[in-house]
């Protein structure tokens, strides 16, 4: 079904259309929420809250872009708000001003990893690093936009992202080395 027709039916209150829209985007959006939280339960809470916002504000959607991108933006914002007000994440959602030498070389690490494993690694990061990494590397926001969303400076966002990236590369390399050792151990 054409997405514009689907949106119109949803605005008319048709339950089947609303369920169809949900079925279409629930999976990908849960992945988005999963990356920002520490558990599947929290991810589903964010997903539920996000979709409620989607249906309540669907009349504001202007058919200029993809509905998926619009829903994704709502999910990201909902996830960040969820982290800010959730007691479990509040204490860890800090963005210290680190004076790190930001490396502009965005070289990709030579580690192959499944999407799920990478997502799990990202979720191992502290919430602050995790959020900024997701927003920059996955969602595609720039540091200025991230600074506005999180209420931090652009330089803080850059340094936090660099730190998060360095940590991830380190873990991925360790994992790869461990996998190789396991393979050798089995062969011996």
């Amino acid at each position, binding site marked *: 079904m054409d997405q514009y027709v689907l949106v119109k039916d949803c605005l008319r209150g048709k339950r089947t259309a609303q369920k169809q829209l*949900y079925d279409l985007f629930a999976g990908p959006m849960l992945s988005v929420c999963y990356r920002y939280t520490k558990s599947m339960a929290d991810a*589903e809470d964010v997903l539920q809250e996000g979709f*409620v916002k989607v249906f309540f504000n669907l009349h504001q959607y202007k058919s200029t872009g993809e509905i998926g991108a619009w829903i994704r933006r709502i999910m990201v914002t909902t996830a960040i708000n969820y982290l800010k007000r959730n007691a479990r994440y509040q204490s860890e959602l800090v963005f210290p001003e680190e004076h790190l030498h930001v490396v502009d070389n965005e070289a990709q690490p030579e580690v192959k990893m499944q999407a799920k494993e990478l997502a799990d690694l990202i979720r191992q990061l502290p919430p602050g690093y995790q959020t900024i990494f997701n927003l920059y590397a996955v969602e595609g926001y720039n540091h200025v936009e991230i600074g506005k969303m999180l209420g931090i400076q652009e330089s803080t966002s850059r340094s936090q992202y660099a730190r998060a990236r360095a940590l991830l590369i380190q873990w991925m390399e360790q994992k790869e080395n461990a996998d190789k050792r396991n393979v050798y151990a089995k062969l011996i």
Partner: protein
Amino acid sequence: MEELKLVPSEPVWEKVEMQIRKEKDRRRALLWIPLFALVGAGLWLGIDKYAQRTAFKSPPPVKENHVGLPASESHAPVESFKANPKATSGNHLTIPKAGIENRRFTPGDVKRSSAKAIESSVAISKVPKVSVPASKETAVAESTENNNKNDKTEVIQGKESIPSIQPKTTQPSDSSKAAKPTISATTQPVKTDSTAVKAGPVKKYAISRQWKFNLVVASGWSGLGKVEFSNGQKSMNVYSSPPSGTSNGGTGQYSYYGPSAVEKGFAFTAGARAKKQLTKRTSFATGLLYDYYSNTIQVGSQVNQNTTLLSYPVSRFYYSAYQYYSGQTTVLQPYKNKYHFVTVPAEMDWQILKKHPLNLSFGLSFQYLVATNALRYDYNTQAYFHNISAFNRAQLMSGISMTYSVPLRKKPLSFGPQFQYGLTRLEKGNADNHLFSYGLKAQWQFKN
């Protein structure tokens, strides 16, 4: 990261849908407010015209020579008090002659107080959370729409607990599964905070004999009306005659100031009501309510002076007051009489139409005056005083109302106009002043 596709559990959509429906029901309920406001406004205009014909009005100004209140030496109407044991208080009424001057009696500059909009109170219910089913075990997901698209896609259902990993020293716990994606079923229950929905048999025609409890809120206008029988005819006009008797030598004219006209004031009701179905279309209701009535009169300035006021023409009542409001003046100020009642109603509800929830309620209410600041008019001194003993604290009120029910998840919300009239006199010994009120009523059934 686009490769990662997860599937949410079933209760997520149910919770989303519940939130959407809740908002929709709330918006639907709000649509009824203007409809009932229109109906209420129409009824209000009609009843207002009726009330204007039956309002408590002061008599036309009377200007008479040498007719007035007797001087303190001769209390012709007071003579009947002597037999009353209460009359031995020792205080004598003195009527200052200086206060009675040659003035033209002008009725109080009564202006209709500006009409306030009827506040329709809506008891909007908070729909309790619809319980969701307890979690069910998710099956192993081996083929879904997502999996068919991409071989590398992993589909995970249910919940997972992510193990905590020390990145520097240990490897991620699921590293052994890195070679090939394996899908495992998870059987952890989904976090819910409500009980499961129990679907029972639908009984359309069974009459429930249980008491159903409602929250009731009403607001509108109240006033004082009077029914007087004169030559077999009813009259709603106040008739108060000055005391008979001749003046004890005084010169000049004595003007008589009657009681002020009573203007309607705000009325409010709140409380709980219990209803029991008797037949398919009739039910009996009772409960406990708080009623507030008010009206406005025009009085003179406040006098702080110990005095004993006699209530004429019913002379057997003595009232003492440390302050009163002078009525012998043309310089008036508004005073709001407020009445606070506790009410126990006994009503019959009748569903007028078979297929539509339009109910007619009629019955009686027993009211007890808990507190009031209302003033009584003393014809002898032409003054207003406050004394709760001057009122009949036990009142019997008749009432009639019509409501329309809007179903809100088996807890209907009813709106409609109502009218009440007191069958008993409000004030002791005085002319027949009866409380009446009309307005809009709303009630919400919060418990079946």
